[in-house]
């Protein structure tokens, strides 16, 4: 079982991240994924989050308690949710929007300039898709094929190709980082 939290500020497409990953896992990767989201004033403009519990069997407890994966696309969300990340967890952040503290425990931190990449692709609104691609490459919890299959219906039809491009950009960037990580370090 895995617990994942996507976080950022309202309007970045954080809930959409949970929906796309949840749909991909549930419909195309043969997993059971339950998605819940933060409602109320905190979801409107300030720190906002969506949570996924992923399992091979039925998800019984719908909420996350100690996520092993945290995705933060804003400083406020990072500060709010980082303390609950497991000591051996994975932290994914937007390189330009989040300044992370020195990591604690065995937490592995990976960063991607998702907003900058999205701007280079022509629209910052697809930064969440860059992040999703990056998330897919680094965590390998969901297949990239399933993620792409999940997009229709969850992103506007006329922007489907652009969203896929953004996903690929993040995915390739993530894969590159993993490859470099494996290379023996030069002395």
């Amino acid at each position: 079982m895995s617990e994942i939290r996507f976080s950022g500020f309202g309007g970045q497409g954080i809930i959409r991240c949970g929906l796309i990953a949840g749909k991909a896992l549930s419909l195309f990767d043969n997993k059971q994924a339950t998605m819940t989201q933060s409602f109320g004033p905190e979801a409107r403009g300030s720190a906002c989050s969506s949570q996924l519990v992923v399992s091979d069997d039925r998800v019984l407890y719908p909420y996350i308690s100690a996520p092993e994966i945290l995705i933060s696309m804003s400083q406020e969300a990072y500060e709010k949710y980082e303390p609950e990340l497991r000591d051996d967890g994975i932290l994914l952040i937007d390189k330009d929007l989040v300044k992370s503290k020195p990591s604690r425990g065995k937490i592995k931190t990976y960063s991607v300039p998702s907003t900058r990449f999205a701007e280079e692709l022509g629209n910052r609104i697809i930064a969440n898709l860059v992040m999703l691609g990056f998330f897919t490459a680094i965590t390998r919890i969901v297949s990239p094929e399933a993620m792409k299959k999940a997009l229709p219906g969850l992103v506007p039809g006329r922007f489907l190709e652009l969203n896929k491009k953004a996903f690929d950009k993040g995915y390739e960037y993530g894969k590159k980082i993993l490859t470099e990580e494996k290379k023996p370090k030069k002395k």
Partner: protein
Amino acid sequence: MKKVKADPKGVLTGAHYLDGDYALAEGALAAGCRFFAGYPITPSTETAERFSERIPSVGGVFIQMEDEIASIAALIGAVWGGKKAMTVTSGPGFSLMMENIGLACMMETPLVIANVQRGGPSTGLPTLTGQQDMMQVKWGSHGDYEIIALCPDSPQECFDLCIDAFNLSEIYRVPTFIMADECVGHMHEKVVIPPAEEIELVERKWFKGPKDKYLPYKPDKDMIPFMVKAGDGHRFHTTGLTHDERGYPALNAEFQEVCVRHLVEKIRMNADKIIKLEEDEIDNAEIIVISYGITSRVTTRAVQQARKAGIKVGTIRLITVWPFPEKRIKELAKKIKAFVVPEINYGQIVREVERCVEGQAPVIHIPHCGGWVHDPDEIFKAIKEASK
């Protein structure tokens, strides 16, 4: 009771990733619901939204009403106009509906009301979960009556039970309730919608006799009177007053007994046919945990833990909460060491369990004030305590 297949127009066959609220709307459309009137309220608003988007494409009507009491009035009118109708709400709206829910019961009007429960009382916790309207759904309107209430534990079941709710409401000519909660309403999970030909629906029991001979409250052999479509030329009357078979006011003790007894008995005498329970490892159980809705999922985790610890624990999930499965609980009370009842309120369904157990075994309640679900550990500890 005539069974028909669902109209493919309303059925979104396939696998989807939906929240419980959306699944309620899809269940209703698959069940042939073609009229929705409601007033938006968190956490049920998404159902209304989905209806407003989807219902024009299936030839139905969506109306945003001025308030909740008017919503039920509109539903009653739509049903007597020949449609299947539904509304959704949450605590505060549910309270406002109560007067006309009584009217729908008295007029024996089949309709479906979903309450996506949030923490109360009053405006309480708009965006957070609760199971605090479980008694209100049974007793909220004045006078004696019976209703049917179902409790989904997942988006999939929001879809499935919505179809059951429409069927039951038609079979018994009674308002039928889906008592969901914010957690189930707002969680997204996989929902599989079957092909239309696999969805069996109950057709309204239409009166086929001469137009001037229709009696809207004359019970048929199965206790349930026939219905007609208003405007088709039948002469009939219907009212919230105590009435005779013609639907005319008959204001004395004699007719009160016939009329109200009928409202109560048509459900109580068919309780065995209506009630659906999900039981697990009851046969050798020493402890039984009784739960419903989202709480039953959290309970399952606690029960797994208890079984690992060697405790003989069984579970009953109340899919039907009203009519209450008193026969089954009474039967089990004789041989069970203790019952454990977790629910997100300060003691509602536990009272029904206590009533049925009649002091033959301890009934341990695990209350929760609302806003969140139980910690499975808390339920596990209660099971452990009960097994000592």
